């Protein structure tokens, strides 16, 4: 996992960063701006070690708060049915790439390049695979808040349990983790006598601002 710090990750400017990343990884996308957002539009080419094999027409709005704010992605040619089972939000018909915090923590960096080659490309690669096999090649998350919870619990290294996740995140949201508090695993022991090593390790990369953000999300 990557230790995330609250400073903006793209100090050089989103437009320049995405322009360079697009030129390198997805040259069939055009980069423009709309209001505060950087907009990518055109063909997203799906490829692998043997070369390109498919393309989707997409539009992506990168919000000014990237990477903390999640981009909004649309498949514009109507190839992907706009249904939850295909991982498309039915309200606005935008694509749901995954639980965003998972990418933030798991990606080696949170750059435009990592976004293009990571969750964005993976989503359309998964869609290609699903069209052919009706299966998600890398697995998928449950719909709704359960899917978010699954993602968070995986990050926290616990079984999928809302209460456990909340108590873990509440502890991690504190500036200082004291050993005398009750361990969130509900063993009845003090943290110092129970899972202190695990929380010390979690705290290495999950700072309070991220834990608070995740807590807010699952308590919505």
């Amino acid at each position, binding site marked *: 996992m990557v230790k995330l710090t609250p400073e903006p990750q793209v100090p050089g400017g989103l437009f320049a960063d995405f322009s360079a990343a697009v030129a390198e990884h997805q040259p*069939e*996308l055009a980069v423009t701006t709309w209001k505060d957002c950087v907009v990518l539009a055109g063909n997203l080419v799906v490829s692998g070690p*043997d070369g390109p094999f*498919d393309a989707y027409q997409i539009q992506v709005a990168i919000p000014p708060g990237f990477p903390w704010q999640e981009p909004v992605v649309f498949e514009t040619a109507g190839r992907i049915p706009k249904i939850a089972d295909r*991982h498309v939000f039915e*309200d606005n018909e935008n694509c749901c790439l995954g639980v965003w915090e998972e990418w933030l923590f798991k990606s080696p960096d949170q750059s435009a390049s990592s976004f293009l080659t990571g969750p964005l490309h993976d989503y359309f*690669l998964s869609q290609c695979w699903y069209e052919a096999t009706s299966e998600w*090649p890398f697995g998928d*998350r449950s719909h709704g808040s359960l899917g978010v919870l699954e993602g968070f619990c995986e990050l926290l290294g616990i079984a999928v349990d809302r209460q456990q996740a909340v108590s873990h995140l509440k502890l991690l949201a504190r500036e200082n983790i004291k050993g005398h508090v009750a361990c969130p695993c509900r063993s009845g022991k003090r943290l110092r006598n129970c899972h202190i090593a695990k929380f010390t390790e979690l705290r290495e990369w999950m700072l309070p601002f991220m834990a608070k953000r995740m807590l807010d999300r699952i308590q919505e």
Partner: protein
Amino acid sequence: MYDFSKQISSFHTDYVRLSNPQRADMKRRRDINLTRIENGLSELEKPAFKDTINQGGYAQKTMTQPPEADEESRYDIDLGVVFETDDALGPRTSRNWVRDAIARKATNMKNDPVTKKKCVRVVYSDGYQCDFPVFRRRWTDVGWKYELSAGDEWIDSDPRAMNAWIELQVSAKSPEMSGSYQLRRVIRLGKFFSKTHAARLNLSFPGGLVATALFIEAYTSDDGRDDRSFRETLRSLSQRSKYSPVYANGFQVSDDKDVERIGRLIDQATSSLEALDALDDDASDDKKARGAWRKTFKHSFFAEPVKEEAKAAMALETKSAVGAGLAVPFLASAAAAALSDAERTERMESAVKSRQSSGEGGKPWSS
């Protein structure tokens, strides 16, 4: 007539004719549908089809790109599905097998597949429409005999003969030219013309086989001058009656509903001719020619050059943006579209394996 043949030729190549990647995409879609039917029939424990027959514009190589004002509209695919006579049941039941097989396997349809009088129709959410006529065949002394499932009857039909007839017309009537045949280009320009004005007026115009047969009937050849050939073809068309039935290979292919559609095409041909005939004037120049052809095809290709350059610059930004990307010299997406199914599958499998082994593949989620 002011010589605008080079521009008409470029227009045909870039905006009317389907590019190879687009044709490859059509082939891919056709193959996907076939697999769906094959697997669906097997799952439903119905007899397997024994043959398929390409029909329509795809088989006749007369498909066109969508008109500029109606880029959302896509192309149709016609593919005959053939059962052995011994396997097929009633005409309606056999069509329903195909409908059920598709409904079972397809996931991105706009509506459920419908059994029409002479085919099963599927409209996909991305605008493609596939028609599957259903045939039964039996071996006779003179070869395979085909019957089309039409309503509650099996009617004699020779689906490959129409393709052969069109091919013969194209090669026999076109002047000797290397490369492609003028009649085929004129049919494409004609179908594009018909589609363009249908979209502009939001009214039905002749399409498919009726349009193809009309332009074959009206075709006037002019070696090396596609512009003049197309104008004179419009003239022949404008002089026919909308009530005259349209024939192809000796069969009437138009019916009552086509009368008004043909009438609209005739009116449009007459109106475009007024503009094109002005190009006989000695004072004609590029600007006037562009105006007349723009009126005919309603396409920005014929816009003033300055505007065109500006558009080209803008297009560079938005070309991939709208995903048109199809007339661009080389694009990875075009290369991908031109892959065979086997190559595509192989590449996709290696892409997935590579991500799986890295352990980084993202899991999609939805609310």
